[in-house]
């Protein structure tokens, strides 16, 4: 009875649409994420302050009050992660957001989400590392976000490059999470978090996107042990064989999900002799560099993994094999490259690293690097 009543209330709560029609805005990325979560019918955010993610909470708290959504500021990121699991267990579209040291603390709960297949959504606005480092920008949270914790990386990580993508992929994250029941991460960065650029926001319904319905893990209809079996979930096992079976099961499920979620973009890769690999905001510089070289009639292409986990290695392999050289541009010391090279094991195309840990990468710098590669080949 109570459940039903609440469901009805919930329905009413979401009757008021936060975004009507298309809404053009000039906003910060953090603001865009908060709007996206709102438009995606997210029920509750759990969070803890850390730069450069704070404004996601700032905007969410201002709007959630108006639209009847929940927010809890916890005592630390460990708690923010675990309360997010609690929200998911209760069957609510729950999310959190963090960065750097906070991301480290949240990996504990994300491991539990992997083990129990809880559809958490987490936004990461990468800052410099290791340690406290800078609050500005980096691409140094790739390892942590893709493989953090003591598990096998059963998760889906989208690396976005613009405010439009932050909006689109935040909405998408909830649907992918609740469809496949693996934790989903939207991997942004401090630049995307803090900068302002134009974005078009919308109600997913108007775009034909249906929000995947949620359902509770605990307290489903009826009385546990009377009307139905109790829902009891654990992440601890007694024997090697028992655990192995569980992990193999998770892996089989994850492998089945990969083809449905793996995503990449190609820019003039068909005939490219030189292929620039970059993800996140660095793709923008790489795309501009390709445009520059193609105008000059030079065969330069760009491969952009959109999902870093799973990595689109299958799509990249033929491109890597036919290229003369590959340039890997990253605002980290090869965190993405390590994932990439693993997926194209055996490819003999030489790779050149352009790593700037904790610092932005410009179009000009990429152009110079590619020109150097070309000069060597002459």
């Amino acid at each position: 009875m109570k459940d039903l009543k609440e469901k009805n209330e919930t329905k009413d709560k979401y009757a008021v649409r936060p975004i009507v029609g298309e809404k053009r805005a000039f906003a910060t990325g953090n603001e865009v994420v908060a709007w996206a979560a709102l438009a995606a019918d997210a029920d509750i955010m759990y969070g803890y302050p850390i730069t450069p993610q704070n404004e996601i909470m700032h905007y969410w708290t201002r709007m959630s009050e108006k639209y009847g959504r929940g927010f809890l500021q916890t005592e630390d990121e460990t708690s923010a992660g675990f309360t997010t699991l609690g929200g998911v267990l209760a069957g609510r579209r729950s999310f959190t957001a963090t960065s750097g040291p906070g991301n480290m603390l949240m990996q504990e709960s994300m491991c539990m989400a992997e083990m129990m297949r809880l559809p958490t959504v987490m936004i990461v606005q990468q800052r410099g590392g290791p340690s406290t480092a800078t609050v500005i920008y980096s691409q140094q949270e790739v390892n942590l976000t893709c493989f953090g914790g003591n598990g096998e990386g059963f998760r889906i990580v989208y690396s976005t490059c613009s405010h439009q993508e932050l909006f689109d992929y935040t909405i998408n994250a909830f649907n992918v999470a609740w469809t496949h029941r693996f934790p989903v991460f939207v991997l942004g960065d401090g630049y995307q978090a803090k900068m302002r650029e134009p974005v078009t926001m919308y109600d997913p319904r108007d775009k034909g996107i249906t929000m995947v319905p949620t359902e509770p893990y605990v307290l489903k209809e009826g009385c546990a042990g009377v009307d139905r079996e109790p829902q009891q979930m654990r992440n601890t096992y007694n024997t090697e064989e028992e655990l192995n079976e569980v992990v193999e099961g998770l892996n089989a499920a994850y492998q089945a999900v990969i083809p449905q979620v793996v995503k990449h973009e190609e820019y003039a890769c068909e005939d490219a002799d030189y292929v620039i690999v970059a993800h996140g905001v660095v793709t923008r510089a790489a795309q501009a560099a390709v445009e520059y070289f193609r105008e000059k009639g030079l065969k330069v292409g760009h491969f952009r993994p959109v999902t870093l986990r799973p990595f689109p290695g299958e799509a990249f392999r033929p491109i890597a094999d036919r290229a003369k050289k590959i340039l890997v541009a990253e605002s980290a010391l090869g965190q993405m490259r390590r994932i990439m090279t693993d997926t194209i094991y055996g490819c003999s195309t030489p790779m050149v690293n352009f790593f700037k840990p904790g610092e932005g990468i410009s179009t000009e710098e990429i152009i110079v690097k590619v020109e150097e590669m070309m000069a060597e080949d002459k």
Partner: protein
Amino acid sequence: MKKEYIVDTPRMPVSWREETKAHKFCPGCGHGLILKALGQAIDELGIQDRIVFVCDIGCCLLAWDLFNTDGVQTHHGRAVPVATGVKRANPDSICIAYMGDGGGYAIGAQHLVNATARNERITVLLANNTNYAMTGGQMAPTTLIGQKTETCPYGRSIEQHGEPTRGPEMVAAIAGHGAYVARGTVSQMNQLKKQIKTALQTQLDGSGFSFVEALATCPTNWRTNAHETWQFLNNNMGAYFQTGEFKKPEEQEV
């Protein structure tokens, strides 16, 4: 001739799950008694359909499938935030975080302190057996002065390790309006059941945070026989840890 036995069904709480009995605790362990008191309290309040039983890590996790209620087994120290997350997302649920002294007073202390300070409408039930039992009997925040454990083999000293944590006293000191805080013992089952029931009632009323510490036995790690076990519980622990109610919801109203 076939011999007939008269079988007396053990009187288990209705909210216990028969299929998973007998439970997995060592002989003489206090957990079974605490959980019996909890089961009776759930039965008497008739709230089996609303319970989310959240276990911490430690011997308490062995209770993950003990009840005929929904439940989640979490990480060490993290039962409180998981219960908090469920409760915040579904206020109709009755969330019980079940943990040991290590989970509550050491690795999860920040969660306990802040959930108390925020007056989260959840119930924390904590077994105090003065050691980390599942990992083989190390020193806990609650280990008594002079008590030997694997990590204080010559006995806990005030100088080196400080005084044993008095959890309910600490929680009561920061608990807000409408909260309930008590300490019971498995040697006083009626009192313990009453305290747990009041704690759950506090959550049902939505007046505030509720916390019950239960003094519990651990003969395996204490290396005590039945008599010594009871002696240690009642005399040694009883002398340092006062049982009773430290905060009641109605007190604040006056």
